[in-house]
């Protein structure tokens, strides 16, 4: 459900984007394409930047999906990009997202919220092909590294075994001395360390002053986003992992039959 209100929001986002990212050359070029009315090329450029995690490009791309400029009008995609932009710290994106949410049907909104956090289920993500190196033209939510074709990470500091190599590590560990689990040696109790265990918990009195202190360390979302940017952390859309078929846990929310004690 779209209304004409979208028009009010769009120039605002553009203005903010111009103010906050004056230095970004690619972004500036994309913006110029947009201002020249070359919406198709602008949408392409903003899509590239948005997938690289450029928060303001994500914001503008959301607007374009909302207005149907250079891309098909798509409130669900618009919501997704507003949300990513907000999470990456684009000023005003959260408001734009919430404003849009107010105009969407409950079904669209539910789909958009799922998509915003989990990314778009695509054939590529259900059956990943490590050799595929084509630019992600169809699947949104792919990280920028997806197309590089090589997934060699920097070596972890002083830690053996990167996870893809863990098969060996894990199996050797499982068959190693640890798995016996019987040789507890001389120290089975928690004596000698600054203990925290079942006994301490049992004897503990609540400490409301410490709780207040802990609550005072809280920080806001904007601060968290800028903290993340400092370390070049870029929010991604990643779906939750389904449990393995072999693992069949009991239904988590099944009511316990009355009197089954």
């Amino acid at each position, binding site marked *: 459900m779209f209304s004409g209100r979208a028009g009010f929001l769009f120039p605002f986002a553009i203005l903010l984007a111009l103010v906050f990212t004056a230095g970004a050359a690619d972004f500036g070029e994309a913006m110029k394409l947009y201002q020249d009315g070359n919406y198709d090329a602008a949408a392409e450029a903003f899509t590239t930047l948005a997938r690289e995690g450029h928060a303001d490009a994500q914001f503008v791309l959301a607007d374009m999906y909302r207005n149907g400029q250079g891309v098909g009008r798509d409130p669900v995609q618009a919501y997704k990009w507003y949300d990513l932009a907000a999470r990456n710290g684009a000023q005003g994106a959260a408001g734009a997202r919430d404003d849009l949410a107010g105009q969407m049907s409950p079904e669209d909104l539910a789909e958009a919220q799922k998509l915003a956090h989990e990314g778009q289920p695509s054939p590529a993500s259900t059956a990943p092909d490590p050799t595929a190196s084509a630019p992600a033209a169809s699947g949104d939510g792919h990280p920028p590294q997806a197309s590089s074709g090589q997934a060699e990470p920097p070596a972890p500091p002083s830690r053996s075994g990167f996870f893809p190599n863990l098969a060996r590590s894990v199996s050797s560990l*499982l068959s190693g001395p640890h798995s016996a689990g019987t040789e507890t040696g001389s120290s089975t109790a928690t004596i000698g360390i600054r203990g925290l265990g079942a006994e301490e918990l049992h004897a503990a009195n609540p400490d409301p002053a410490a709780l207040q202190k802990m609550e005072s360390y809280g920080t*806001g*979302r904007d601060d968290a986003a800028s903290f993340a940017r400092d370390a070049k952390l870029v929010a991604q859309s990643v779906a939750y992992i389904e449990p393995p078929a072999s693992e069949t846990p009991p239904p988590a929310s099944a009511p316990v039959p009355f009197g089954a004690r």
Partner: protein
Amino acid sequence: MPKFAGPVFSLILAAGVVCTSQALDLGDFDLGKIIDIGKKAIQATATVPVEREVEIGRGMAASLLGAAPLLPNDDLQRYVNRVGQWLAAQTERTDLTWHFGVLDADSVNAFAAPGGYIFVTRGLLRVSRTEAELAGVLAHEIGHVLRRHHLEAIRKQALRDIATDLVDEAVSQRGFNATPFIKTGMQLYARGLDRGDEHEADRIGVVIATRAGYEPYGLPRVLLALNEMNPADASLQWLTSTHPPTGERLSLLEQLMLGKFEPYSGQPQVAERYTGFAKAIN
């Protein structure tokens, strides 16, 4: 059959009671009592409102802090909070105000309490080497809160203990009394959650850390480090006794992550910022 049999029947059904045909013979039944029991069971199985979730979680957090003090290092506490807030921003539970704390304890462990209270011990920070690893652990705990694992375990225990009036107190007209729920929650820290809950939190943890832009293998790396420690190490006893075997967690995660997370493996691990803050505890 009396005309009110229908509503009573559905009440009982809703409470999860298996109805025998005998139960429909209302001749000898105290109707008021059945309705009363049914209502209570329904209320006890209803979704816990978020205010109550937070009240229970705050109580558990205060008790944890009575067992182990906060590490007296404001910079480190704020740092862990900022990592945690960034992670929490990637989740669906924006209705909560999240809080993160470092406990001054050598035991290697981390905890979640309902309502968004997350703890790690100094011992765990010593084992971790990068922000991505810390994020993996915090995200695992966040996973417990997202899926309300503790709350659900407390609720089930409350229903089992129904004869002890736990549920009676909860639904009494005097108002909500969180105390018995907090006590039950504290027992969970000593006993541990269901194994399936821990595996689910592992699965959620790696996803949330990856959503936050970290290299996805932080949590597996910490598990690997734990696995490389001497299992007799006293600081590991509590974690070992309350979690599934570390090797099992690792191999399950590995199976599930293979083929899905490689595209994100170039994301930052953020080692320098972590060691900058964590050096204070070494």
